[in-house]
């Protein structure tokens, strides 16, 4: 393992802004694993740290294939993590809306550009991503439909779901999208949580990446069989919204199985605790997403289901 500074900005009063990378193996740039780009992505940092630990042990055992190298970047935005801000500390811009970046541009364009210069040459790119809404997710691989997405490769992670989604205008400036445009096979991996650490799902995500790398013969590792991934389009998720704003109480967790008419969640009036809405499952399926904040705003998508008629 070698540790290096991939990008740095000298600051006026704070310690310098540094993006640190951990490199394993030698030769061909095979896999790059990207962690947190936003200040609230603690789980993404944690998952990378687990990955660094596992790769270090594999490397010590000589299990990284010849002429293959792996780079892990646990955090591309330490400044925002340390100030508990989600986005860039000065102008509130999102590094993951600045790719491919621009070395002569604004600060977050420079950061994105500095990272992308280092990582655009990798054959495979894996990003521990977070959703724009606060909540828990069923672990899955997410790919943007750019016309270059390779679904068969995505299945090799062995996670229960591969979710395909149509890029919206702002998605074109994300790392995942630009990796694909620059001919990297790019995958976003969603674990259960973001702002708090879920060890089990971080472990599952790391195993999935090891699975994938072993199938590409980047490491030799007795891989877990994993799941036969089901491919779903994000537009086919069944979205259930809060009819009224209030206190949200969930009765299910992400990844849980539900059948039609199961009670999924309750929304209560904050002053009287009177029940505004009882949310029942319209269908049998898997809970793909659950809102995880006490307050639910009117029309917020609080639960998303993946339909499954065969669920018993």
């Amino acid at each position, binding site marked *: 393992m070698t540790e290096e500074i991939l990008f740095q*900005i*000298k*600051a*006026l*009063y704070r310690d310098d802004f540094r993006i640190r990378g951990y490199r394993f193996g030698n030769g061909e740039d095979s896999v790059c694993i990207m962690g947190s780009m936003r200040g609230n992505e603690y789980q993404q940092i944690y998952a990378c740290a687990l990955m660094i630990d596992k790769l270090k042990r594999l490397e010590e055992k000589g299990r990284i294939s010849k002429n293959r190298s792996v780079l892990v970047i646990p955090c591309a935005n330490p400044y925002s993590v340390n100030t508990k801000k*989600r*986005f860039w500390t*000065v*102008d*509130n811009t999102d590094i993951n*809306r600045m790719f491919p970046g621009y070395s*002569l*541009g*604004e*600060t*977050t*364009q*420079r950061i994105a550009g500095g990272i992308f210069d280092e990582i655009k040459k990798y054959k495979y790119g894996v990003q521990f991503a977070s959703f724009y809404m606060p909540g828990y997710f069923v672990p899955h691989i997410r790919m943007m439909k750019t016309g270059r997405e390779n679904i068969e490769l995505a299945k090799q992670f062995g996670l229960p779901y591969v979710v395909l989604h149509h890029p*919206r*205008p*702002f998605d*074109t*400036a994300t790392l995942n999208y630009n990796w694909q445009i620059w001919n990297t096979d790019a995958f976003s991996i969603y674990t259960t949580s973001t702002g708090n650490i879920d060890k089990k799902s971080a472990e599952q995500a790391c195993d999935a990446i090891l699975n994938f790398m072993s199938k590409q013969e980047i490491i030799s590792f007795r891989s877990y069989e994993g799941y036969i991934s089901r491919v779903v389009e994000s537009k086919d998720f069944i979205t259930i*919204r809060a009819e*009224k*704003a*209030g*206190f949200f109480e969930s009765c299910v967790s992400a990844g849980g199985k539900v059948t039609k008419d199961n009670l999924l969640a309750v929304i209560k009036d*904050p*002053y009287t605790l009177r029940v505004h809405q009882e949310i029942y499952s319209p269908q049998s399926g898997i809970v793909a997403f659950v809102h995880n904040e006490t*307050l*639910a*705003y*009117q*029309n*917020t*998508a609080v639960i998303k289901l993946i339909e499954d008629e065969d669920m018993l």
Partner: protein
Amino acid sequence: MPNLKDAIIEVVSAEMPVDERLMIKKHRIIGTDKTIGKRICIVTGIHGDELEGQFVCYEVSRRIHENAGALKGIVDIYPAMNPIGIDSVTRGIPAFDLDMNRIFPGNSDGDMNEYVASEIIKDCRGADLCIDIHASNIFLTEVPQIRINELHKESLIPLAKQANMDFIWIHGNNTVLKSTFAYSLNSIQVPTLVVEMGVGMRITKEYGIQLADGIFSLMNYLEMWTDSNMNKKTPIISYDQDGTDVIYLNAPVSGVYVKERDHGSIVHRGDKIGNIIDPLGGKILFEVTAPDDGWLFTSREYPIVDAGSLVGRILKKEVYEK
């Protein structure tokens, strides 16, 4: 004195979690002469920290009431598209950390913000002109200007020329801009001019008066306002689809920026525009100079800069001399 019809109308509302409704309101003024069925929308406050449009809304309404007989058609004034942002000194939508100008045209089945955005678009649909007033941001000061996406330049340039602004900047299309308010309205044939002027968190009264003059000039052009004595500047126009008309001055180092030249200055190659200083070490870290002759139409207001922060924009001399 002829009578105007005036009403404060709730455009859309949504319930907040604890005993509060989010409300977007407009002031509708209907002219006395109903033979002209035209309507103009004056919109501001999509970014909650941009306040220059607040004075414009007031001033337009004041002048209409002072000269009620001159108005034909309908004026809708929306001073606060993002009212909780304005109230809490927040650029985006508080609690969602979301830029409201990235969620249009919205979605009537979407979350609260997408729903609100879609109702706003519905309300502006069919208008003959919309003016979306921005105030740069808290970091930069801008000369009064209109920004136009090249896709909509044919319909918008003739209108923009009537708006009494100093500058019209026609820029290249960018996918990200598809989710702006202006793009959404222009796509449904509501000509929408985006004004950028002044600086965030402040009101520059002279700019407010200049734009109010421009709005009456536009209304006059649309035959909604009869007045013979209109202020109408001839703007500098940059057809900058390829992005070569403007020099961007980005700070090469982090520090404290102290400007030497104000926005709107004519600068010559080598002129000092500002210094990036280090108060701890008592040194100048970098002297920002003009790389070429031109017009400094943007300048940095907020002193703290990171490496990369924009400190100014210069329109090249050959562009405005043409």
